[in-house]
């Protein structure tokens, strides 16, 4: 039976519309994976050197041991954020003569193939082979390896269990995050407990008595069993669904009323964003990316250079345009035919997109003003890029949107979701980020940076003031492409 299930899993992966249709994506994906594996391997091979440098005078194995539990704590938080629950794929099996036990085992086993389960080993195996094996012997090596396996599996099943609990009851999430936060505070801030000490103690003991690793494994088995029992008693259609069906409130946005028909369209799109998982997480991510400037601006050497604020300014004030706009009109793919046959005029359709982008970048611009703390030139650059984004970037994004024929499922999470990603998303990033820098380049060479910013801002203004023309252009383009777009959205 399990082989049958695995066969189906395999087929579902390769036959999925998102996998493999476009070779470009596959290549990029594999390059990314190889890149990360390479980084991890290099890190691992050099781990003894790194640990020696960071904790001079300390035995590297001891420092390594002290780290392990931190890693798994971080791993747990990451899994909680990113790991997808394998859920609805079991629906077809529920009415076939297959025992629930087999289905649950399949659910548990099929969830195992996630990167989170490989990374601890890619990260530690070279180090273990290079340092621990020759120094402490084969038994200790096996002990450490088994206990790492135990902790990985424990985290795996524990995070799945918690996520399933959260689906039934949202308070569990607060409880879980609170517990994690409390543990971190107790360790880093108040120094009441020390995870490092616990980690050292545990793994030093395992090196001296490798049989202890079995206890760690037993923990993992226990967690698997708890998960198993929970799943088995909750294998019901209405409870498997990822979202809870609480009473939905209706949101009205009075501010948008003044824009008439266009405002209504924006209000609909705002609802689309707030009520669906994937666009909602895109929005959340946009807020997180507001902090992006901290990476650049806090470095003293970049504080007087203009490249960083221009790049960051494009990114920060335009994050929503870029992040949400790159999948335009796929968000509406499920009801695109409805839009085409409705009374919505295409001009209004585009005007609504522009209005939404304008509101979003205004909010982002206002929220980014505290960056002025790092220098006035940042505010100038952000202002220029804010105008640029409203005028030029919105247009570029919408123009590229007419080349996008890929459907998107709104109810899936955004992280690691490659659905709807096509060549147009990769091509899009080039004009968006490169053009402003190219325009700025000659001014920078002539040391006329302020003038450069003014020119960028002015171009944005000109585009803003002539928006009608651009909407006409887009409408024409759209009317030519509409059949192709609608056709693409109809294909699941």
């Amino acid at each position, binding site marked *: 039976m399990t082989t*049958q299930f695995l066969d*189906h899993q395999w*087929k*579902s992966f390769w*036959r*999925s519309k998102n996998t493999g249709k476009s070779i470009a994506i596959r290549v990029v994906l594999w390059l990314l994976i190889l890149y990360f594996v390479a980084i991890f391997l290099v890190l691992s091979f050099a781990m003894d050197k790194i640990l020696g440098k960071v904790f001079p005078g300390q035995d590297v194995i001891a420092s390594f041991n002290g780290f392990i539990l931190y890693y798994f704590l971080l791993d747990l938080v990451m899994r909680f954020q990113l790991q997808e629950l394998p859920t609805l794929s079991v*629906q*077809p099996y*529920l*009415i*076939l*003569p*297959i*025992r*629930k036990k087999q289905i649950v085992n399949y659910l548990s086993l099929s969830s195992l193939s996630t990167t989170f389960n490989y990374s601890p080993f890619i990260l530690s195996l070279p180090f273990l082979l290079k340092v621990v094996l020759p120094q402490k012997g084969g038994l200790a090596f096996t002990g450490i390896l088994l206990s790492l396996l135990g902790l990985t599996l424990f985290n795996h099943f524990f995070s799945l269990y918690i996520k399933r609990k959260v689906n039934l009851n949202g308070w569990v999430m607060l409880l879980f995050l609170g517990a994690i936060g409390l543990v971190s505070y107790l360790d880093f801030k108040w120094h009441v407990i020390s995870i490092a000490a616990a980690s050292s103690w545990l793994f030093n003991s395992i090196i001296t008595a490798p049989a202890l690793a079995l206890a760690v494994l037993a923990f993992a088995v226990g967690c698997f069993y708890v998960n198993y029992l929970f799943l088995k008693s909750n294998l*019901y*259609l*209405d*409870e498997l669904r990822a979202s809870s*069906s609480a*009473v939905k409130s209706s949101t009205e946005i009075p501010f948008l009323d003044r824009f008439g028909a266009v405002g209504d369209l924006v209000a609909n799109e705002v609802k689309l964003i707030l009520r669906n998982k994937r666009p909602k997480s895109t929005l959340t991510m946009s807020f997180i990316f507001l902090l992006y400037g901290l990476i650049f601006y806090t470095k003293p050497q970049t504080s007087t250079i203009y490249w960083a604020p221009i790049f960051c300014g494009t990114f920060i004030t335009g994050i929503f345009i870029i992040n949400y706009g790159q999948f335009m009109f796929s968000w509406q793919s499920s009801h695109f035919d409805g839009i085409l046959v409705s009374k919505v005029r295409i001009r209004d359709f585009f005007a609504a997109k522009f209005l939404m982008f304008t509101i979003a970048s205004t909010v982002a611009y206002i929220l980014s003003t505290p960056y002025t703390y790092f220098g006035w030139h940042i505010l100038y650059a952000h202002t220029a890029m804010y105008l640029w984004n409203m005028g030029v970037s919105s247009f570029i994004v919408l123009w590229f949107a007419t080349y996008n024929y890929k459907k998107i499922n709104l109810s899936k999470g955004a992280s690691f979701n490659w659905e709807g990603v096509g060549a147009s998303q990769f091509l899009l990033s080039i004009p968006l980020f490169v053009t402003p820098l190219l325009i700025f380049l000659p001014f920078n060479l002539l040391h006329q940076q302020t003038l450069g910013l003014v020119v960028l801002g002015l171009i944005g203004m000109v585009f803003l003031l002539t928006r009608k023309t651009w909407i006409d252009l887009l409408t024409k383009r759209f009317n030519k492409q509409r059949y192709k777009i609608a056709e693409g959205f109809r294909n*699941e």
Partner: protein
Amino acid sequence: MIEVQNLTKSYSGVRVVNIPALVINKGETIGLIGNNGAGKTTLFRMILDLIRSDGGEVLSKGANVVQNENWRDYTAAYLDEGFLIDYLTPEEYFYFVGSLHQLTRAHVDEKLSTLTEFFNGEILNKRKYIRDLSKGNQCKVGVAACLLQSPELLMLDEPFANIDPSTQIRLKSILKDAAASGNMTTIVSSHDLSHVTEVCQRILLMEKGKIIKDIHTDANTLKELEEYFSVMQ
């Protein structure tokens, strides 16, 4: 065959199913009718242990379907496209379902050959995944997969809804043949009163979660039902 006792289910405070007692005997062909929201599909799902009931129980051959899973061996059901493994081709799906009943490929092929007319040349050897078939053809795949299992209990939720008239007629004759053999208990829900009265010996009419009529089909049944539904207008 099926015994329902005090079965209830509510969604956000509204009783969608409330059945104090219902007995379905072996070999009966039952038609389940009622307007949208009457609770037909919810009842189906509780009989198949797909959703948890709030109270009461469903016994299949005397065993509670929640605790004992033996009903899976002799029950076949098709509720909607969501229950098809849509990334398989129809053949792959049939072989998979067959394998669950220890049927070899040759056996499955043999059974499928009796359904050639029903398929009307649109299912087999088309090199398409199930998800690329039309809704009507997906329904054919689902119904065929059920018949393949030679079930003692067959449950179909609105099988007539998406299929073409010829297929409707073929499906009706398949169901009637099955009923005549007396080995198969069938529960079919439908909105088409004439189909139901033609195929089914006994008709259950649901309204707001309750079974308000339980009638044996005779010459007057169709008229009686039409009257009920026209009053509802």
